[in-house]
């Protein structure tokens, strides 16, 4: 059997992403959307579906959705409406979810993804539609001691959700992860959602199948919906697992798309495998129909233009600008931009001040990001200002400090919040007078006849021994200057 680099199929993936919008209040009532409050304390007759209560649309939620849709290059119909999606579940108190069915608030957009590591070509992933809906509550099933006890928290019920549905344009788990990363970044930049998977403000389902290469042409396998993926990494792994599983299933059964009903599988993180979920409850007819309690929403050209103008500089354009303006690599711009707008602002201030974009990018990636990571803080809490760091970088570039000493100084600055000069003084770092250094080198040459002999014999590497001794005598010496002087002075001997 021969092993080919490419699998004998194309993997076809479409994603359905639900993101909670960063509104103060819920989609159809004035209750708070704050995460983590005691159960059922953020509820009212409307969001718990009390008889007689009526929904009123949160215009702010609509505006945030509009922002996201425009940033995703979607078309915005000038009229959109609400529909009821009917199904029974205890965390859905009305017995229906207010959603959008056949006239979503946006459709036909796209998001460009690329991989600085080059695992896939830069491509645009189509967005089929993005629509608004309300979230359900949360069910907590406590099944200990055989006493099944379910509890329902309706704090989340009615939280505004934007459902973003992609075209089946993704071809690998890496692309899916890149799409999610880029989407999250975009929504963070827009202030539309914090996309926190732990708190459930971003949830992903994937529709996956294969187009198996056969002599008769590509054959599609049945589509599987994968749920329960709790991190981007889980998405990547679940999709890789599914591809393999579906290929094996195809070889075993030969089943094609249409042979069996659509299956739903859950991702089991502990087993690192997908498992079939009971399809009995899943096979629902949602009986969508227009929501009679809400009026259709009209969107004006002025509103679209106003929101479009408020989008600001989005990640893709920002990366390109950083590369062009500061001469940094796509890899660097990707790392910087992915950290969020605040870090980019820090970088720009730093690069402008120290006059070297590449150095600024390096210092941020090597030292600043490590500190942010270690301390789990954002750049806004980083103790060293861009001005102070620029000052330090200039000292290094000017030869007053070697890089490794510079990093020690930065560590001191981070620790104390003091400027570079003070840290250097405290560390005893001061400029070395060149005449003094010349004297020191002479002394060392005299004291090390063996090294001098080696050097004279052409073994230039031996100068390292002298540099080491010089540093021991005075930690402030510039090693390359020591080397230079020693080689110069040896001619005089």
């Amino acid at each position, binding site marked *: 059997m021969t092993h080919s680099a490419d699998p004998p199929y194309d993997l076809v993936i479409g994603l359905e992403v639900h993101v909670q919008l960063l509104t103060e209040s819920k989609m159809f009532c004035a209750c708070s959307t704050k995460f983590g409050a005691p159960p059922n304390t953020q509820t009212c*007759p409307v969001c718990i*579906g009390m008889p007689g209560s009526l929904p*009123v*649309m949160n215009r702010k939620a609509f505006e945030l959705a509009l922002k996201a849709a425009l940033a995703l290059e979607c078309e915005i119909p000038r009229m959109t409406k609400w529909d009821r999606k009917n199904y029974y579940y205890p965390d859905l108190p009305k*017995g*229906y979810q207010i959603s959008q069915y056949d006239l979503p608030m946006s459709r036909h957009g796209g998001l460009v993804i690329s991989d600085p590591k080059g695992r896939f070509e830069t491509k645009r992933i189509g967005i089929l539609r993005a629509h608004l809906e309300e979230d359900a509550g949360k069910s907590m099933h406590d099944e200990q001691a055989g006493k099944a006890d379910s509890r329902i928290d309706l704090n989340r019920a009615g939280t505004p959700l934007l459902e973003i549905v992609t075209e089946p344009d993704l071809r690998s788990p890496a692309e899916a992860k890149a799409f999610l990363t880029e989407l999250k970044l975009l929504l963070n930049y827009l202030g539309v959602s914090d996309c926190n998977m732990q708190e459930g403000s971003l949830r992903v389902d994937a529709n996956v199948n294969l187009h198996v290469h056969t002599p008769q042409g590509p054959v599609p396998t049945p589509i599987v919906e994968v749920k329960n993926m709790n991190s981007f990494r889980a998405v990547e792994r679940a999709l890789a697992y599914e591809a393999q599983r579906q290929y094996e299933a195809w070889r075993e059964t030969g089943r094609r798309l249409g042979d069996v009903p659509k299956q739903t599988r859950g991702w089991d993180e502990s087993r690192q495998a997908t498992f079939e979920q009971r399809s009995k409850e899943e096979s629902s*007819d949602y009986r969508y129909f227009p929501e009679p309690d809400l009026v259709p929403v009209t969107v004006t050209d002025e509103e679209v233009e106003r929101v479009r103008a408020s989008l600001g500089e989005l990640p893709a354009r920002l990366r390109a600008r950083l590369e062009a303006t500061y001469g940094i690599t796509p890899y660097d711009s990707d790392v910087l931009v992915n950290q969020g707008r605040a870090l980019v602002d820090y970088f720009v201030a730093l690069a402008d001040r120290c006059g070297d974009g590449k150095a600024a990018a390096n210092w941020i990636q090597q030292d600043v990001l490590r500190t942010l990571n270690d301390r789990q803080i954002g750049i806004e809490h980083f103790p060293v200002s861009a001005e102070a760091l620029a000052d330090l970088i200039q000292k290094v570039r000017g030869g007053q400090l070697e890089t490794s000493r510079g990093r020690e100084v930065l560590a001191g600055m981070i620790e104390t919040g003091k400027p570079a000069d003070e840290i250097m003084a405290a560390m005893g770092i001061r400029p070395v007078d060149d005449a003094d250094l010349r004297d020191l080198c002479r002394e060392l040459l005299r004291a090390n006849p063996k090294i001098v002999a080696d050097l004279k014999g052409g073994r230039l590497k031996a100068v390292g021994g002298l540099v080491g001794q010089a540093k021991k005598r005075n930690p402030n010496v510039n090693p390359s200057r020591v080397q230079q002087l020693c080689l110069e002075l040896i001619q005089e001997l």
Partner: protein
Amino acid sequence: MSLTDLTATALLAKLASGDVTSAAITEAFLRRIELHDGQVGAFLRVDRESALAQAEAIDRKRRGGDPVGRLGGLPVAVKDVLCTRGEPTTCASRMLESFRPPYDATVISRLKAADAVLVGKTNMDEFAMGGSTENSAFRPTRNPWDLTRIPGGSSGGAAACVAASMSPLSVGSDTGGSIREPAALCGITGLKPTYGRVSRYGLVAFASSLDQIGPLAWTAEDAALLLEVLAGYDPADSTSVNLPVPRYTETLGQPLENLRIGLVREHFDQGLDGEVEAAVREAIRVFESLGAAVRWISLPHSKYAVATYYIIAPCEASSNLARYDGVHFGYRTDQRAMVAELEAQRKCLEQAGDEAGLDALDNALVRLYRKTRSEGFGPEVKRRIMLGTYALSAGYYDAYYLKALKVRRLVRDDFDRAFGEVDLIAGPVTPTPAFPLGAKIDDPLAMYLFDLYTVSTNLAGIAGISVPCGFSRGGLPIGLHLQSPPFEEERLLRAAHRFQQATDWHRRRPRLAADVA
């Protein structure tokens, strides 16, 4: 003449002049309820103490010279479909027998702010589904003119309590005729406002796109008074319309110059009872004698109105009533018995080795839903939930719901065209006077067809009023139906008032023997 024979307007004048107190009026109506409601069954609950306390508080305000609200201490009965804070709001259903909403409906707040005395909640068809009030889970209501007959529905209690002089004013809801039909059968005046005129917030929904709250009273003048209080924009109801509310009582007496009235050819077809037709034609002659020009018009799609209504209303109802699942509020089946039954069934199937049966067996949650809803809803509600669920299902949606929406549009277009030619449309409210209790209970189709003259008003979202216009030889009231373009309640009320100045049908009172008990 006793206080309970007076109209709300007359009582209000007496209150304002200090001739009588709200407490005295309230007490008089409460006595009347105690005397007669055992027979009539208009009320599901009477709040004697709270009503008297409200009346006394309003009297104190008036004595102290403080401003008093528009209804100044008049008793008002409220259909039990409107949420009243902390008090049972049952919709005449087992499902909501113990439900106490934590909030007031907007119209209840408005009534309270207007210093109405809320005397109690009136009986109705369960969840407002029906035209006879026989679908109440608790008791039927009887027609005060003939206790063997239905009062109409679904606001049967609301109409009967006014007709029996147990309350001068009453608030109902109308989804396909539920105010106008019982008003006609009980010989009083009932108005269904334009969709959006009155806030639906706190009205337990039957069919959201059709439901509208409105007043019932003896006279158009009294209905105008109550509508002034009920109507108005409410930001809590997205479908309520932000238009100023005219002072209906002030413009009531203004003449209607060159009034053009249209008679719908299709409404005088077969199926219309001869006595009803005669009374309606006589009423039209009254309008002619008052200077109105009458002409025949056509509403060609009106013949589809009942079919359209009985798709759209059940579709919305099937969704609106999904929340009654025994989980969050209202009735829940006996859980212990349910689990025991389920376990017994499981064991039985296991012993029989019936794999398919086991697979088909409900899980506990589904069984909870099934039993709660089977036990909590009555037959008519179940019928409509099933109709609506079916019509919205995949594969049927286009043929039923979508087609019904299109016909609804055509019905509305018919009215728009007609109102280009006439100012009001007149006709019968019901095909016959009140029928005996039980006469149609086993024939839902006959019951649905009783709505044929009223449902199109709701489908078109326009306004309609029922005005007493005669009696059958058997002494049963007959109603005249007037319909106006949207937000022309003022025109409706002026026409009805003008008619009532020329006739005295609205002054007749049924004779009720005091309860033997």
